């Protein structure tokens, strides 16, 4: 579903440490500047590798944790049509998590390490999934806004300089456009429904709007890694640029629904053609990153429970594979 600029200035993990620029660094940057893709066994600076591992892993975790808020409504979908759509969407997110873990592994980190980091609460994932899904309209708002923001973020990643990540993102983006459309269609049905349904849609928009804007990450002057990531072409556009694009695309869609964006400062600047919007409350975002969002604990507990309760399946599969391998040996021997 989504990747996010999560790094604040306090998080200096990928900051290039002051060191001599080597011939390898220069050749590497020349390849990047020439729009060559970097493949797993190519030489790359440690910072490039670290940044990618962190970003791809966060992205993968976000897909997996992102299954939870929506999974919450599968059994309560109001029709079979909505239920199959939601099931397919949540299943896609599991798949997207796998593509991304698979891309991260090409950089030399193991899947088990990544899963352990998530379960231990040491890994970050998108802040958006720490909000609860209180009503059915939230499923519409997530598809429309959260997936909409995700697509805005992810389309440029299809041209990321690291080959395996770019290829994974192409698959993800191809699959994701249905996610946003089903969400908007759901919102449309509610907005055109009874007064109560329309109120539900408006309430969902009210709660998901600002968190969706935060998905683009801290503003450019607060973002620790932007300049280096742009030079390495891991990132193609700044957080603020992408956020602006999202607002410009989404406001007319809200108008079509007859819903009101919960921002009294929102207005179209006729000169620039862009919407100007109010200040984002970053203290909320920072609290969520620190683990104090409404659902942080619940999400991790759900992941740990799923991992623990799946243990017997993993053990059985391992035992079964060992037995088959033994039988095969006996037959050929």
């Amino acid at each position, binding site marked *: 579903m989504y990747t996010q600029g999560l790094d604040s200035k306090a998080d200096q993990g990928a900051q290039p440490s002051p060191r001599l620029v080597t011939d390898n660094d220069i050749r590497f940057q020349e390849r990047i500047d020439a729009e060559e893709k970097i493949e797993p*066994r190519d030489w790359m600076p440690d910072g490039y590798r670290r940044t990618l591992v962190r970003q791809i892993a966060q992205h993968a975790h976000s897909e997996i944790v992102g299954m939870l808020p929506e999974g919450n409504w599968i059994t309560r979908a109001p029709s079979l049509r909505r239920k199959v759509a939601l099931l397919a969407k949540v299943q896609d997110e599991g*798949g997207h998590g796998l593509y991304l873990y698979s891309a991260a*592994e090409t950089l030399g980190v193991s899947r*088990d*390490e990544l*899963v352990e980091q998530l379960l231990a609460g040491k890994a970050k994932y998108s802040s958006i999934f720490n909000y609860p899904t209180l009503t059915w309209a939230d499923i519409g708002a997530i598809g429309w806004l959260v997936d909409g923001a995700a697509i805005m973020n992810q389309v440029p990643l299809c041209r990321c300089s690291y080959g395996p990540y770019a290829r994974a993102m192409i698959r993800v983006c191809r*699959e994701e456009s249905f996610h946003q459309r089903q969400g908007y269609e759901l919102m449309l049905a509610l907005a055109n429904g009874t007064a109560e349904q329309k109120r539900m849609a408006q309430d969902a928009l009210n709660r998901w709007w600002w968190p969706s804007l935060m998905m683009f990450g801290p503003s450019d002057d607060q973002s620790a890694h932007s300049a280096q990531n742009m030079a390495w072409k891991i990132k193609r556009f700044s957080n603020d640029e992408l956020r602006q694009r999202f607002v410009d695309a989404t406001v007319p869609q809200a108008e079509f629904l007859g819903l009101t964006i919960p921002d009294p400062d929102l207005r179209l600047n006729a000169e620039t053609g862009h919407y100007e919007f109010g200040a984002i409350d970053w203290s909320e975002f920072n609290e969520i990153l620190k683990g104090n969002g409404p659902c942080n604990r619940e999400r991790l507990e759900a992941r740990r429970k799923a991992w623990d309760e799946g243990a017997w399946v993993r053990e059985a599969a*391992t035992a079964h594979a060992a037995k*088959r391998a033994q039988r095969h040996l006996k037959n050929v021997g």
Partner: protein
Amino acid sequence: MNHTASDRKDWPLFEIFIRPKNGLSHKHVGSLHAADAKMALGNARDVYTRRGEGVSIWAVPAAAIAASDPADKASLFEPADDKVYRHPTFYEIPADVKNI
């Protein structure tokens, strides 16, 4: 009992190749971990062919793939660059000669 990720450490990595339709070659699409080849095929079907992407799957243990080293790129592949006589355009044929 509290399990950690370590109870899966032995599952090998499989590289997954999909044939989009008969007449085309299998193409690499990604990788996954599985207890054995049968499980790798089942999981590949679930994650890599949800929208009619393929008619055939290969799951190859990643450890079984021998790969050339990118550092050898120049010695391996550059010698081909100056062998222009391996290409048809190297040979001059009068325009009047047809079907060649």
